[in-house]
């Protein structure tokens, strides 16, 4: 049995959740402290596979700035954030770029692309 305290960030209320993991044959998660059902989903996801959107910048040539902002086009596993930063930092692109253009396809095999977040 494993217990973890998590603050729910699915809405501004920020409920203090306690997620209990029971391993009796099948995995079972018990969430307490949530004021609504979304908190339960969030709590279980944070325990099993926490994910985040990652935002950063990439080097760019032929533009009025030398960095262009990018983000993952969806959430990636939290554990891959620093690996993903390494991939992002390897890239150097050249303008013009449109907002939404794919900068890295399927980063680290996650199925998620890295896209530009502005035109430059």
């Amino acid at each position, binding site marked *: 049995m494993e217990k973890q305290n998590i603050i729910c*960030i699915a809405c501004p209320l920020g409920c203090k959740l306690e997620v209990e993991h029971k391993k009796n044959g099948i995995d079972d998660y018990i969430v307490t402290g949530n004021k609504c059902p979304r908190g339960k989903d969030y709590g279980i996801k944070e325990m099993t596979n926490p994910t985040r959107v990652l935002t*950063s*910048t990439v080097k760019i040539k032929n533009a*009025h700035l030398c*960095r262009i902002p990018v983000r993952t086009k969806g959430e990636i596993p939290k554990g891959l954030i620093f690996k993903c*930063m390494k991939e992002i930092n390897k890239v150097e692109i050249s303008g013009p770029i449109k907002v939404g253009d794919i900068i890295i396809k399927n980063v680290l095999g996650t199925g998620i692309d890295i896209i530009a*977040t502005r035109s430059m």
Partner: protein
Amino acid sequence: MVNYDVVVIGGGPAGLAAAIEAKNNGVNNILVIERDRELGGILQQCIHNGFGLHIFNEELTGPEYAERFIEELYEMGIEYKLDTMVLEVSPNKTIYAMNTTEGILNIQAKAVILAMGCRERTRGAINIPGTRPAGIFTAGTAQRFVNMEGYMVGKKVVILGSGDIGLIMARRMTLEGAEVKAVVELMPYSGGLTRNIVQCLDDYNIPLLLSHTIIDIKGKSRVEEVTVVKVDENRNPIEGTEKIFDCDTLLLSVGLIPENELSENAGVEIHPLTGGPVVNESMETSIEGIFACGNVLHVHDLVDWVTEESRRAGKNAARYVKNQLASNGNIKKTYAGYGVRYIVPQQVRVANIEEKLHLMMRVNDVYNSAKMVIKLDDEVYKRIKKNHLAPAEMESISIPAKDLINRSFTTISVELEVEEA
């Protein structure tokens, strides 16, 4: 002298939304003046996500949010000038501006919309003793260096102040390989949103030291160490709790101040608590035909509310130009009662409200489970239950015009009724 119907000062999200909405309401002769090399304002450096949940129903980054409005401005053919600094606005709405290609510009407007945003408090404003070495930045300046110029500001970082910019920069610096030793906050609660504490600090095991402050900075040419100390309930340092952090960079995230030199010189009345102009239901300042919106009016944490408020300013500037705004008349006041720090707008002319009156406010402390009580003079109009209220999160209330028309009252107040835990 050139003439425009509406001149918008500042091309950030506030100025963009106001200009677009003025055009949508039938004014064609509009000019946006921006001192930076591009439109978008502060959003261009806010590369993190979390913008637009209310307006677009999706989570965008700052630049994406800005680009949607910039594109719309282009498509509508609204005129704008970049690299142009407004130097002065006169009470009769003459604007003096300057740029390197045209020199001094002299512009006459029928209506002016102030949308200059805010600036960061600096170290001088909060008086930390110690030497003055390099390596001390406001968090927003560091954000601009890192995100737009690609220039890393330091390796070992301490952040003073837990406002959202400080939290966002704690994560950003960590991702770029710096070690963020701590975020130090004077108050017993954070000045930032909970989601930012979780995503920016907890995710990266960055300690948040509440009720702490920095009492000394050491370093010859570059910051070498800072001394952090715990404070008591009166915010006085507690002796014997000093901790020394070895660092080369100190970021300050100690608050924002609305940028109102232009407004003050024009003679616009400034509210002592918001630091921005006193406005009425139409976002009009104490000078007829001069409107204000966005961070220049009061500091916002969510750009979505900036957009909403600015649309109101733009629409009403258009109504003013078209002579559809009743000037003076019967002026009601808003009053921030117990637990509420301020309310914007401060004045209300009921005749000008279209559909609903929107009140925006901040509370002065963290409350779990309280009621917001809206009163017309002494009579309770409505009680709204709130599970959670915090100074970092702006609250808004709207009151249908039909509930205000034909009622005799002089003051609309909002106060908190706090239940015992």
